[in-house]
């Protein structure tokens, strides 16, 4: 009946393999750390390349344009603005990106539109930012671009190379608060409606106040490998995404927010289902609610917000009715509001659990005790040779 599990000592080659693997992961982690914005290797140096002053001599003149087909592209560069950019600070030369230009007159531009001209420059970013470039290849933006939507954003749409400020604090290695705001403003260029919602949400409002604990767009959507947020797998992963911060007592304690939200969610019917889907069929849709179905996506409000806060049962009921159209007033109380049952919160559930906590061992204990006396009597009788 009993299965014996044998534990063999790990062999030396297994250990070496594990050690090697560990080192490899460590090396990759260091290499891929987000603090490292650009590749450390400098672009190929041209001995006779012209300096930025040489280029700016002409290009600082305002109103300079380049005709591309029927469009006029401004080719004026404001030396002050460029001087404040991270590329200037890092000593990147104009010709490091504009690799086809080394002298005047410049070679003829073949592209017939501004967009085509921008698109032709994408690969120049790759020279220094290969990590980011690679990540973008898996992004929803690249998918749109590959599908022929040429307005889907490329590097320079989010990061104007001539004015791009430094985003990562040199000491902290993290996004600075201004960078976090800059991210939201950048996404807002195309996602204006979404930004409007976010701006007034509990997260967006705090970001505007200079709070670095709240998520900006990239914290949930990723930076360069932004995935499609409308897929089943993204939805199934939502609880884990929110849990990243909401399970972290270091952040939540500051605001008196419970860190039991994930645990209580998973203990509930919805959470159990979604967790299992996430583990077993991450790509398959489930109709069970995730965090955002009740709390909102970009318009997440404080739970005690009188208008939309879900701590108010009438507000919560509206959320319930999205999936349970026939639900009536009492229905929303079936959700325990992320409370672990206690005499104060959901006492009925608490006392039912308490009852079984004692009832189960009492009944089973009684049975076991009786059976033990029965076994004892049988053994004694057998030894005495008496029939039971």
């Amino acid at each position, binding site marked *: 009946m009993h299965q014996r599990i044998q534990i063999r000592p790990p062999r030396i080659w297994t250990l070496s393999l594990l050690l090697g693997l560990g080192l490899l992961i460590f090396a990759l982690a260091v290499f891929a750390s987000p603090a490292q914005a650009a590749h450390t290797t400098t672009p190929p140096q041209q001995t006779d390349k012209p300096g930025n002053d040489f280029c700016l001599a002409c290009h600082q003149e305002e109103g300079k344009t380049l005709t591309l087909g029927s469009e006029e592209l401004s080719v004026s560069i404001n030396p002050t603005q460029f001087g404040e950019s991270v590329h200037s600070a890092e000593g990147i030369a104009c010709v490091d990106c504009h690799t086809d230009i080394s002298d005047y007159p410049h070679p003829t531009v073949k592209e017939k539109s501004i967009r085509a001209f921008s698109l032709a420059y994408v690969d120049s970013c790759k020279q220094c930012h290969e990590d980011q470039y690679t990540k973008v290849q898996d992004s929803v933006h690249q998918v749109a671009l590959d599908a022929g939507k040429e307005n889907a954003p490329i590097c320079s749409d989010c990061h104007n190379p001539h004015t791009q400020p430094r985003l990562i604090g040199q000491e902290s290695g993290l996004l600075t608060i201004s960078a976090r705001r800059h991210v939201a403003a950048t996404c807002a260029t195309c996602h*204006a409606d979404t930004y409007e919602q976010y701006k007034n949400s509990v997260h967006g409002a705090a970001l505007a106040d200079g709070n670095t604990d709240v998520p900006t767009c990239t914290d949930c959507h990723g930076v360069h490998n932004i995935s499609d947020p*409308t897929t089943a797998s993204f939805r199934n992963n939502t609880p884990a995404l929110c849990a990243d911060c909401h399970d972290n007592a270091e952040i939540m304690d500051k605001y008196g927010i419970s860190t039991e939200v994930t645990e209580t969610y998973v203990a509930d019917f919805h959470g159990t289902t979604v967790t299992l889907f996430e583990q077993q069929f991450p790509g398959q849709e489930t109709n069970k609610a995730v965090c955002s179905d009740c709390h909102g996506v970009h318009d997440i409000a404080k739970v005690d917000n009188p208008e939309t806060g879900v701590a108010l049962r009438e507000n919560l009921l509206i959320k319930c009715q999205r999936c349970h159209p026939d639900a009536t007033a009492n229905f929303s109380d*079936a959700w325990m509001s992320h409370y672990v049952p206690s005499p104060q919160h959901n006492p009925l559930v608490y006392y*039912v659990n308490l009852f079984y906590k004692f009832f189960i061992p009492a009944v089973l204990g009684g049975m076991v005790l009786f059976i033990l006396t029965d076994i004892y009597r049988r053994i004694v009788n057998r030894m005495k040779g008496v029939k039971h």
Partner: protein
Amino acid sequence: MNKVNQTYLRFPLARRIEHWIMMLSFTTLGLTGIPQKFATSAISISVIQVLGGIEVLRTIHHIAAIIMMLGTVWHMLVMGYGVFVNRDQMSMLPSLQDAKDGIQALLYNVGFAKTYPQMGRYTFEEKMEYWAFVWGSVVMILTGFLMWNPITATKFLPGEFIPAAKAAHGGEAVLAVLAIIIWHMYGVHIKRLNKAMFNGMQNEQEMLHEHPLELADIKAGISDRRPDAATLRKRQMIYYPIAAVLTVAMLAGIYGFINTEETALKTVPPISESVDATAVP
């Protein structure tokens, strides 16, 4: 010696089939239910995976629940027939004697009583298990209804009854499964392999050991008295229409259990959002 080989029919085939249906549906309910209660444990996750995921598991659980409810309806009809038409002794009803028997058995086991109690058709152990099963079924059916039909339930009851029902359903399930494993396994499989639910029979020895009073009744010819043909016919004519009405009512109850409400939409309304890609500078 031919007395020892004498056998007695304890459970006719119909009762055995009934038992097997309840046993199989109970086992299915346990196998698909316990992993739902402990859904984050590794064993549960494997079971759920093997059975095709949580939604399939729930469907199996629901089907098994329907089978068990049908079994319960059948049992009540059979009991009704026995009590009303045959006027059988209600040998499963608990009595003070059962408590006395239980205490005496315990005292005998620990050496404070000289003899083991003499019992009839159903021993106190069997009655305890039967009534525990009845109690468990009532709890499971009521709490199961609340979880299956939360919208209907909360029209009449506070919302908190739903998670409370879930807690009770889970607690009762653990109790029921463990009680079967401990009490039933020991009582009819380990202590002595009781074949009454396999071939329906008990031999003289077994009867003498466990049901001496019933055996005495059988031998005295007072155990299984059937009414005469005319009385039987008369009672059947009364019972059948009543049973038919009850059957329809109970089946309607089960139908309602399954079809009262459409709890949730099959798909969550998608999130729509607008993108203005022409805004690229």
